[in-house]
Structure formats: C-alpha cells, structure tokens
C-alpha cells in the first residue's frame, strides 16, 4: 500500500521517466543503487548532452570564427546557435549580451576586473550578502585590495533569509555595485532579486546576480528582473563542466574595458595599436570550450522539452516531502528554513560531525555534500563548522528521499552510545 501511495504522485512517475535519460543514474555504489543528492555541486548529464559533445568531436571538430572550410563553418554555426538558445533561456534582449566563460566564477571575476576595476576607487562600497558563495566574495575582496573600495554585508535572519531593511540601509551615495546570489547553495533560500535590483536602481547602482543555483530550478527572466549582470555555470544545468555564461546589459558591456587579451577578441593588431572586436567577442579571448558550449545547447534543449511548472512543482514536492521526514529525526537540525526555497536541505546532527555523516551515507549509496559548501561566513553565522547537504534535481524521487532518511537513521545507529 505504501509503495502504491508513492507511485500515485504524478511528479514522481514523471521523474522516473526523466531518470532514464541520465545513464549514470543506473550506477551502483558499494553494491547499492546510487542515490545522487549532490546536485547543487553538479548535476548529472542526460545522454543528449553527452552525445552532442561527442558528435562535435566525431563529426565536425574545428575551430570557430576562423576558418573558411566547411567544418569550421559548421562548428561556428553550432557554437553561435547556443548563444541564441541562452538568450532565449534567460530572455536577454540580444545574443550579444551572452558571453561564454568558464563558469560562474570566471563570470564574476570578469565583472570585478573589467567593470569594477575601471570604475571603483577608494571609499566606494560594494554590497554583498552573508550567504554568498566564496566565488561571489573573493573576486570583490581582490577588487577592494586593488582599489581601496570596501565591502558591506547584508545580514541573514535565523530562517536564512536576507534582511531587506538592513539591505535598504546599506545603500548610500558610496555604493557602486550590489552582488547577490539568486539562490543560496547552502540554504536553498530564493532571494527576492527583483526587489533587490529595484532598490539598488533607485540609487543608480547596478546589480550582479549569481545564478549558479537558480538556473536549473527557476525560470530566469533577466529583463523582468532588470539585473545588470547574471552569471551561471552549465554544469549545474545538466550541461558540461568548464562552460558558463555572463549575461550583461549591452550598454554596460560596451562601455567596459576588455578582460583578457588574445585571439578572437581583436579587430586588428599591430605593435603600435590594437583595436578590439565588438560584443560578445570582445570578452571571449582565445579558443573557447567549443564542445562544452555545444553541450550546453543540448542541455537547454533538454530542459526546453520539460515545462517549468512541472519542474518547479516536482522540486517543491520533494522538498515538502523530505523536510518533515528529516526534521523528525531526533537531534537533527535543518539549517535554512526560508519561506521561499528550492530543494536544498542542509542539516546538522547532534553528536555527529557532517564528515562522518557523509562517509556513512556514502556506504549506503547516498551521495551528499558535507563541509562548508564554500560559504564559510554563512557557516559562522549559523555557528556550525560544516553541514551535511542534500540537494535535489529533476530525476530525484520520494523513494530516494526515503533512502536518504533511512541512511541517516543507520548512521545514527553506528554512533549510538
């Protein structure tokens, strides 16, 4: 009866179909079926993505934007088509606003070093939040060292939500940039980015939104959000590693100095003077990750075959199912109880360190992340050195949540006095 009940959930039935698109999910770990719940670190890849990459290498591998020969034209076409796919995915005005980079980290560094370095000076302020990933902290710290600017930090409340009044108070005539995450990778919190942007714009301050965790979980509309920059990584969107996107409003990108110098980003080079290429090529120096970009295109197509409503509903359903089950484990405390969150569950267990939980869960085939999740200031805020984190993707099911909870009980058993 219990099993029947579970099969009755429409979204779980759907997820069982989606699972078959992901070859690695058939793996066994330590003799147990793999229960992959480390999706916030990186998602698994559907066969369509793997095949798109290998198709490029098998059938039309060539450099882009250079050759006059057939393969090069084909590769260039495939590469540029993905730019348009990304434009539509996030509703940018033009494909010229889509810059391919290595990932979220490089996108943020690009903005810090190009936009930030050319505009900021001593006394200026950059507003970040307490829940940022190190990759949305450290590039700004480097910029501060270079320019003498200072960081101001939006605090987080006990639920794991940004304190919006405090944010409003931080904005002043010295503020030059706001950089916040759309969704917290440690807590799952969805931040009210549209309101954050609107408030910053009242002060004439541009906003960078770190979309690394949002991109696979929420429909993203950069025009509606009105953010000035948006960054994400393909590998958290069921695509390959080593590719990411920086979206920037065209006018801002036009005005920004180049980031890296090299091939492809120039118009003409002489030892006297070099003139730079137009957007988006101005920011894409050197041979890009062509196969990776093509893989990203396949990932976007794959997601395009699924309704956002369905995806979001499944994510919410898994979270709603898992949260009370985990919370009812004695001694377990969930870190991050925002009213608006995606399927990420960070927790600590009394008398057990996260690292031990991770090892014990792994022995049951359950893959989770343990540690500080590259958010050390946030861990400090909640007074924990580390958490265990389960994070969901479209192919996860209630059955897997049950496996997680069962593995947690087993782990507790090992540590029972």
């Amino acid at each position, binding site marked *: 009866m219990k099993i029947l009940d579970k099969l009755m959930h429409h979204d779980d039935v759907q997820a069982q179909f989606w699972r078959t698109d992901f070859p690695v999910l058939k793996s066994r770990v330590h003799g147990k079926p793999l229960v992959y719940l480390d999706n916030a670190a990186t998602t698994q890849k559907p066969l369509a993505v793997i095949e798109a990459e290998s198709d490029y290498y098998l059938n039309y591998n060539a450099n882009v934007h250079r050759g006059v020969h057939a393969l090069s034209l084909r590769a260039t076409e495939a590469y540029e088509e993905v730019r348009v796919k990304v434009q539509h995915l996030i509703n940018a005005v033009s494909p010229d606003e889509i810059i391919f980079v290595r990932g979220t980290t490089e996108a943020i560094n690009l903005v810090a070093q190009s936009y930030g370095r050319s505009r900021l000076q001593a006394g200026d302020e950059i507003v970040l939040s307490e829940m940022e990933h190190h990759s949305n902290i450290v590039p700004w710290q480097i910029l501060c060292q270079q320019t003498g600017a200072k960081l101001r930090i939006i605090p987080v409340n006990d639920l794991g939500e940004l304190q919006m009044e405090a944010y409003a108070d931080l904005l002043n005539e010295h503020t030059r940039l706001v950089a916040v995450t759309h969704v917290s990778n440690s807590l799952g919190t969805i931040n009210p980015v549209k309101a954050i942007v609107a408030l910053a714009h009242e002060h004439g301050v541009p906003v960078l939104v770190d979309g690394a965790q949002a991109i696979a979980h929420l429909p993203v509309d950069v025009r509606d959000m009105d953010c000035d920059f948006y960054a994400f990584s393909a590998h958290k969107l069921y695509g390959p590693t080593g590719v990411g996107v920086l979206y920037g409003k065209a006018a801002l990108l036009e005005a920004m100095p180049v980031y890296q110098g090299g091939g492809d980003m120039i118009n003409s080079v002489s030892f006297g003077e070099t003139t730079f290429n137009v957007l988006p090529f101005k920011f894409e120096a050197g041979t890009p990750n062509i196969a990776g970009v093509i893989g990203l295109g396949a990932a976007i197509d794959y997601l395009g075959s699924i309704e956002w409503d369905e995806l979001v509903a499944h994510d919410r359903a898994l979270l709603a199912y898992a949260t009370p089950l985990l919370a009812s484990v004695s001694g377990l405390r969930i870190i991050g109880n925002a009213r608006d969150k995606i399927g990420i569950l960070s927790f600590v267990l009394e*008398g*057990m*360190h*996260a*690292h*031990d939980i991770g*090892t*014990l869960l792994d*022995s049951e085939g359950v893959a989770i992340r*343990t*540690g*500080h999740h590259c958010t050390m200031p946030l*861990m400090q805020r909640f007074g924990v*050195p*580390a958490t265990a984190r389960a994070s969901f993707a479209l192919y996860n099911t209630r059955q897997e949540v049950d496996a997680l909870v069962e593995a947690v009980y087993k782990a507790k058993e*090992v*540590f029972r*006095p």
Partner: protein
Amino acid sequence: MNDLRELYQETILDHYRQPRNAGRLVGANRTAEGYNPLCGDKVKLYLKVEDGVIRDVRFEGYGCAIATASASLMTECIKGKSEAEALQLMESVHAMVAGGGTSAEGKLAVLAGVREFPQRVKCATLAWHTMKAALDNVEEAVTTQ
C-alpha cells in the same frame, strides 16, 4: 559495511565522545593550531616540553570522529615520550593510514581502518601534523590541504 565497522570501531567512538586530555594546558611552552579546510576540523595543541621530553599535552578543537579520536589517542601516546619518539610515532601513523606501512603498535592500531577511506586520511593525520608544527614552534596555523 565491514570497512565501516573497522573505521568506526568502539575505541574510536569512545575517544570521540570522551576525548582524553581535552582543554587548555596551563604552562604549555609549545602550541600550534591545525585546520582541515575540507571539513572544518580544527585543533589547537598545547605541549609542555622539558629537556626534549613531552611532559604534558592537551588539545582543544572541533572535528569529525576520526580527527577527534586521533587527537585524543595521540595525546595519550606521546605523553612522556621524547620529541624524537613522538615524531617517530607520527611517521608510523602516517604510513599506516596512508597505506603501505604496517600497523602502528599499541592502541594507535585502531586508526588502521582509515586506510580504506582515502578521503579521511587528512582527518586522521591533522593532530599529528599539528604536533609536529608545535614541536617546530611554527606560529601560524597548519593545514592539511
């Protein structure tokens, strides 16, 4: 599961729950801090060394079961030992958990289970690296990265 039992054997869990020689050591003349950024294990070690002999040792810190038990066991084993003997013990623990080496003698042998869990070797060796740093009188925190 057998590997797990070996890793989390009763002695380890006992030292984790009730670490020996925990807390500050008043009158320590060598200290060092160790940090494992991967999992947030932190240990501060206090040594009282006289005439090349470790007269007393205590530690403070927060860590996983392996890191804490290893630190606790270490304090028991190095008390009364010469600096050279303590470093010798460190070498044998390292060889044992990193594979290759034979079992360390005595109660330290309970750490042998770590060998099957390469991701946990740094947890087991953190306190020992910190001890070496304290003996060398290194001021800044050591990490196992």
